């Protein structure tokens, strides 16, 4: 979050000075890391050809995309949805039923994904209109209720195949690299979703969502169309999740009511987001990259499904209890502390960057501590009020 702010550079617009040297260095470093990651992701299945690992990889990119989509709504607006499995399942079933209906040959299948996403997005509209009018606690529960309704509908309606679900035909590419097309499609969806997340984060739309998260009523009082903003985010998030559900169906080959509408889906996604850092851009992705392979590994190692469930639950608890804020914010805090220590070590006497704040009657004396002026903006930066009597005032 703070990273996004630095990039957008409101300070540059305002003319307040920053240590620009370190800022540029950070941006370059970040872009470099990103490039490296993308390259690794792109060549991964070509290098690691073990089918088991590429299967892990497919499921991982699926979850990365799902978490990014979930975070786009829940992370930014603060409304925790535990019913996104609805969109996942709707997407899966849509794609599955259409494939059966139109009897599509192997290679064209991925073209159906946007349709799955579209249907899921359309479903999100009425659901959102009802669910987004209630307060946050109730919202969580009503999303759970929606989930159960849809799962039950999948069981009971005829055209969804009831208990049998919908199975997919065999696809026409070689068994050797069977997983690869799924992987790449999943990767593309994930990267696009993350990019969209980033764009939204720095945009007007995103700012409104974040304001809603902090103080919805105040935001509404300032003219933000809260219902419209929430609903739009909900629909976009649901649509992408639907596409991912469709991809999942193609990969797994079968949609059953209890697998397409999986009660563990949302909890897993939420956990990934919290592990990485709820509401941040990178955090949820990180969480997915860590947890999904881990989850797969646990399921393989503890072949007794029940034991794996226990291990998962214990893992969940451990994350929640010991890393409550998630990896990214905690990590950012350590980085800031380290930077501050470095800066202090380097410039003990001067006041660091030039003071901002032209309060009439005097500018800030040069003794102000550097951490009050840097734009990293994490909570640990401390109150910048020391030494500026005309603006801050001592509490």
């Amino acid at each position, binding site marked *: 979050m703070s990273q996004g*702010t630095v990039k957008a550079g409101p300070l540059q617009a305002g003319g307040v000075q*920053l240590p620009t040297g370190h800022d540029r260095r950070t941006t370059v470093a970040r872009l470099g890391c990103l490039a490296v990651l993308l390259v690794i992701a792109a060549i991964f299945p070509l290098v690691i050809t073990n089918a088991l690992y590429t299967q892990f990889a497919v499921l991982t990119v699926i979850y990365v995309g799902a978490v990014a989509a979930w975070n786009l709504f829940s992370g930014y607006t603060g409304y925790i949805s535990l019913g996104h499995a609805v969109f996942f399942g709707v997407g899966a079933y849509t794609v599955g039923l259409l494939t059966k209906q139109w009897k599509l040959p192997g290679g064209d299948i991925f073209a159906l994904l946007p349709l799955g996403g579209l249907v899921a997005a359309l479903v999100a509209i009425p659901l959102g209109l009802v669910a987004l009018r209630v307060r946050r606690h109730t919202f969580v529960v009503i999303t759970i209720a929606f989930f159960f309704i849809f799962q039950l509908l999948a069981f009971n309606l005829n055209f969804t195949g009831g208990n049998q679900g919908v199975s997919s035909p065999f696809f026409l590419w070689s068994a050797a690299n069977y997983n690869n097309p799924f992987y790449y499609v999943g990767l593309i969806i994930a990267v696009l979703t993350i990019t969209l997340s980033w764009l939204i984060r*720095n945009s007007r739309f995103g700012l409104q969502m*974040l304001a809603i998260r902090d103080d919805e009523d105040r935001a509404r*009082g300032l003219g933000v169309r809260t219902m419209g903003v929430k609903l*739009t985010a909900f629909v976009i998030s649901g649509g992408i999740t639907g596409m991912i559900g469709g991809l999942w169906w193609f990969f797994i080959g079968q949609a059953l009511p209890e697998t397409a509408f999986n009660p563990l889906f949302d909890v897993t996604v939420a956990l990934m987001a919290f592990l990485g850092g709820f509401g941040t851009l990178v955090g949820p992705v990180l969480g997915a990259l860590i947890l999904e392979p881990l989850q797969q590994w646990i399921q393989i190692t503890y072949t007794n499904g029940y034991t794996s469930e226990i291990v998962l639950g214990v893992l969940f608890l451990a994350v929640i209890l010991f890393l409550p804020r998630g990896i990214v914010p905690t990590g950012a805090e350590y980085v800031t502390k380290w930077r501050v220590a470095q800066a202090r070590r380097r410039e003990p006497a001067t006041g660091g960057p030039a003071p901002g*704040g032209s309060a009439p009657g005097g500018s*800030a004396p040069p003794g102000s501590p550097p951490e009050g002026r840097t734009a990293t903006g994490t909570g640990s930066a401390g*109150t910048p009020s020391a030494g500026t009597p005309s603006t801050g*005032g001592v509490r």
Partner: protein
Amino acid sequence: MSTLLRTDAVTKAFGGVQALNGATLEVEEGSIAGLIGPNGSGKTTLFNVITGYETVDGGDVYLGDRKITDASPDKVFLAGIGRTFQLTRVFSRLTVMENMIVAAQHAEKGSARIRNPLARAGGPATRRRAMELLEFTGIVGHAGALAETLSYGQRKLLELSYVLMAQPAIVLLDEPAGGVNLTLITTIADRIRELNRQGTTFLIVEHNMDFVMGLCDRVTVLDNGATVVSGPPDEVRTDPRVLDAYLGTAEDDDDIAVS
């Protein structure tokens, strides 16, 4: 001078508690008006009623010639009334600049209905104006800092700043001097005067008598939800009814729990 804001015998009850019982108030355009009264007299409730956070049981609220009784908060805001809160409300996890941009949402509405939703938040004009306002209130140095890192006094200034972003015709300040040190109080008073000189009308709820008397053109006193007296500070200060309201008799000691 015309009347910009007017409430007319407003009544409001919460369960068994009559918070407002004939609250009448007039604010002239271009003036700085004060609203005082002992604890529980209904000042914040009246603010809530004016700005749409509460509905009335009876009476009306007028902005200029328009009746705005029971209008929702966003409509009131769009009509040109800005407001700060007793417990300062800022968007803590947004930066100071982002707080300002959020408040400029409606001001940015151009004639084009379809605007790029992914456009960067806050166009150059908005940012410029935000920086101006932040310089004016003196917290521009923290433009990139998260609002939650600000001190209490700085948050008050931020709230004032972003309320001003929409260029409201009248600003309602709920205890702007509450809990801040003397230097800051002076700064705030100066800012209010300066803004008033530039044309903004103010209605201020305050307990700090020096602040109110020194700043306001006209003061209205509320007691038990009803207007007791209204007039220039010197008159109000020495009016026996006002002293009575504040010191009160034993029966008057029910503090209405008004948020």
